Structure formats: C-alpha cells, structure tokens
C-alpha cells in the first residue's frame, strides 16, 4: 500500500523527480531549495546545486533558512564572490536549470515578486527581484514550484520581475533572450507545462484525487488542460522518507517545524 502523504510533500517530490539527475541547478530559497536538495539526495550524485551567495556544488545536510547560511559554504566545493557568481557562472551560461518560487505568476510564466498594486503606491511591497530576473533569463530553462491559489495564479500580474514568455509565443526570442524560459510549474494540485507555440501554461498532470474543476477554481485565468492529462505518480516510500528526514534534520538544526523551507 502506498504511504499517506500531504499535497505539499507530493509537490516537492514531483519537482525533485522532474529535476532528475545530472543537471546543474541554480536554487532559490524556500520550496525550490527543498525540492532541489531532495533531488540531490534521492536521484543521484550528479545533481549540482548552486546558490546565489556564491556556493558552488553545495551539499547541505539541512535546508538553509537563508540563501547565505554557513552550512551552504561549509559543504560547498568552492565559494566564489557574488559578482563572480552572477557574471561568470549565471550570465556565463553554465547553469542548466533555474529553480524559482513566486508570489504571483501568470499563464505565460511571468513572475512578480516586487509589488501588489502600483509600483509607486503599492498595496503590498514585496521583497523584490534578488537574483530571479537573470536566473529566469540566463539558465537553460526554469522550473517553478509554488502552492496554487487564485491569489498567486493570476490573470494579470502587477509587475514583471522575472520575464517568462511575456505575451506568449516567441516573445523571448523577440527580446533577444535565447534560453527556453519557464518549462515547468509544479503545484500542490497539478503539473503545468507550456503548450507548443503559444507557450501558455496548461495542465499536463493532475495529482491523485484532484479534479479539473478544483484546479480551475484555484487559478485566476481561464485555465486550459492538455489533450492528454496524466496522473502524477504518488511519492514512493524512499522519496517520502528522504524528504521527511531532510525536514526533521532541518527542524532539529533551526528549531523550526522545517516544513516550509
């Protein structure tokens, strides 16, 4: 019998499975960091993790609370300066996958982490860009992992912090961006991938027990579904054990519940 699991656990496990093995991954803090580290632990030794604080090939035993935790540096192959990280490693085109979270995302994978409302009179001021804009443009492709709700999956984002597919189609190419951009969104309900030609995100896999209607309700745009929709495989025991163990180690270290990082 398959073990019990939460929607968050399946989201993280599925994102880790999709990362596979043998890729060089630029990791954002929070949910992406959990998924990327799970991939490194379960998928094989050839998953290379890089954090913007300068840590190359880091293998943290616990999930970092911040992007520059000591653990990331102590377990890294080498630690470089922040300008070197962004100029040589990211802009230099040496990263396969950028792994991001978002406050708001639209159907073309454009991401807002700057403001809700008008920039000069914001309703809510969010932290801002950080490394995300150039992670989104310089990495070979971008994966997004975030919980799905109408507040976060919106028809129109208030501010483009990280350019995805813009207005869709070949908008990236027209701006002179030659990387693939967002290719995957994994949520607690489903998996979305960009439709060929339009680059609009459509549902390609529903998590077990999730209905189409439920996903549409949790999406602010008129969500479309691929012709053929898969059912996301539930996490196997090995993945679930590794994830729970990672969160437990993190909780022991940070004194937190370790479930959201």
């Amino acid at each position, binding site marked *: 019998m398959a073990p019990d699991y939460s929607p968050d656990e399946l989201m993280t496990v599925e994102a880790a499975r999709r990362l596979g093995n043998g890729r060089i991954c630029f990791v954002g*803090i929070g949910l992406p960091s959990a998924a990327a580290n799970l991939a490194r632990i379960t998928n094989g030794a050839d998953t290379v993790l890089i954090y*913007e*604080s*300068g*840590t190359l090939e880091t293998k943290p035993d616990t999930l*970092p*609370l*911040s*992007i*520059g*935790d*000591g653990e*990331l*540096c102590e377990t890294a192959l080498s*630690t*470089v*300066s*922040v*300008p070197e*990280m*962004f*100029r040589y490693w*990211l*802009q230099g085109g040496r990263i396969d996958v950028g792994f991001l979270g978002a406050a708001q995302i639209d159907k073309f994978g454009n991401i807002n982490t*700057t403001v809700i409302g008008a*920039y000069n009179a*914001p*309703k*809510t*001021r*969010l*932290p*801002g*860009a*950080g*490394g*995300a*804009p*150039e992670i989104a*443009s*310089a990495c070979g492709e971008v994966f997004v992992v975030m919980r799905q709700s109408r507040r976060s999956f919106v028809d129109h984002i208030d*501010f*483009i*912090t*990280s*350019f995805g597919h*813009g207005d869709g189609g070949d*908008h*990236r190419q027209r*701006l*002179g*961006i030659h990387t693939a951009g967002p290719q995957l969104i994994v949520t607690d309900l489903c998996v979305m991938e960009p439709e060929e030609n339009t680059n609009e995100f459509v549902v390609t896999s529903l998590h077990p027990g999730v209905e189409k209607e439920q996903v549409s309700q949790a999406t602010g745009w008129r969500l479309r579904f691929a012709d053929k929709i898969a059912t996301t495989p539930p996490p196997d025991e090995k993945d679930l054990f590794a994830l729970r163990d990672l969160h437990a180690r993190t909780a022991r270290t*940070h*004194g*937190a519940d370790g479930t959201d*990082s």
Partner: protein
Amino acid sequence: MTRAVPRQSKVKSLSDAIAANIADGDSVSLEGFTHLIPFAASHEIIRQQRKNLTLIRMTPDIIYDQMIGTGCASKLIFSWGGNPGVGSLHRFRDAVENAWPHQLELEEHSHAAMASGYDAGAAGLPFAVLRGYQGNDLVGTHSNIKFINCPFSGESLAAIPAIRPEVTVIHAQRGDKFGNVLIEGIIGVQKQAALAANRVVVTVEEIVDDLKASSNSCILPSWVINAIVEVPGGAKPSYAFGYYPRDNEFYKSWDSIARDRSHFLEWVQDNVLSAPAKNVDVA
C-alpha cells in the same frame, strides 16, 4: 581617494571611526551577503543620528530595516528587501507604503545588476554592462537602467551606473592594526564594495599581530582602508564563519518587533540608543 600610509596604525574606536568617516547626506554601503553584516557599525550610525543617507546594499536585511525605521535614510539602492527565510522587512515596507518615518526614494535593481555595478565601481569604470533586465518592469522605475548596443556585435545589453559609495563599511573576521583585512567563508561583494568607495571602515572580530592568512584570504590591503575597529560579535545577529552562527531565532523574532512602530522604537531605545558601543575606546 585617500591614500593612507601603510605602516601606521589605523585602529580607532567605533564612535571615532563612524564620526570621522560618515556625514549626513553621504551615500553609504554596509555590505555582507547574509554573512558578516556590520550590525555594530550600523548601530553606531543610528546612535550618532545620521540623516539623509543614501543607503546602498544588495539585501537591506534587518540592518537597513533598523536604519530606515530610525530615519537615517532618504534613499535606498537595493535589489532584495526581505527578511531572509522569514518574510517582510516591516520598517522598509512602512517607509515605502506609508512614508514612515518619512519618504524613502528607491533605486531598485536585480542582484546581477548591483553586483556588476559594484564591480564597475571597483574597476574605476563609469558603468556596468550585463545581459539582463529584458522585459523587466524595473526598467523605467528610475533612470539608472538603460540599454546599449555592443559596439562589436550590436547585441542589446543592459547598463547601470557604477556604484560608488562615499563610504563602505564591512565586518571581517580578522585584521591587523595597520588595516590588512581577512575574510573567509561567503565573501559576498565586500571587496568590490570597499574598492568602489572613497572611504572604507572595517570592523573585525579580532585585531591580531599576524593574520595567518592563506594565499587568498586577505581581501584588502591596509592602504585601501581608512579605519579598523575591533568589535567582537559585530556581525550579530548575522554570523561570522569560524566565530559564531547566524541567530536565526532573532531573525524570526524581528518580524514581530518590527511590525509595530512603537514596539520597534522601544527595541531601538533599549538595544541601540541606550546601549554603549560594543568595543573598548582606543586612547
């Protein structure tokens, strides 16, 4: 830029170092990427009630939340304004959303642009060039992001002015009395920020006779800095690799301290204004 005599002690008290190097209206960078954030120096700036500063920092962190909330800053140049791993910086948000304690002008960038801007400043170039900002709504929120064409290939590239702080303040693990500075661990952007500035103040965990620096760990020679101050624990609640870990609990508790204006002001009164500078005065 001041060129100091190398074989002369640059050891100062924290209050003297700040008073001599930071004036009202200066542009000031206090750098340290999560690691080695110069909190003790920022508290001295708050105690000396500096005003109208242009604060420059990639990640404003709690350190600038405190300086913004106490009214030191009129402008912020930054690229990520959150409480790492926790959420919002409430004093920063209150300044942007409600102009409290007063209006805060923003010049907002991405990390890649800020890192390149410091790099250009250190290199003595007028601007930084990067492949970035395409389709980004930050373009146009201020006048310091522009696009230029590569003179060789014609490719459109982003440009921002070199970041050149009047003063850069950093915290390091060790220094000697002449002002040679060692940093190990996450080295961030401190070297670039220091070399981009007109004046440099360094606080350190320890002033030692012999740095015992490996070939690459002395990041700044004495003749590019203006003052060195021994402040053990000067990066708390951030961390100093080899000395003490990050105080994650304080970062979490900051959320409730900073959320409320009066609670914040009480905290500043008790922990900054009424607290003496945490280093011995140097005669």
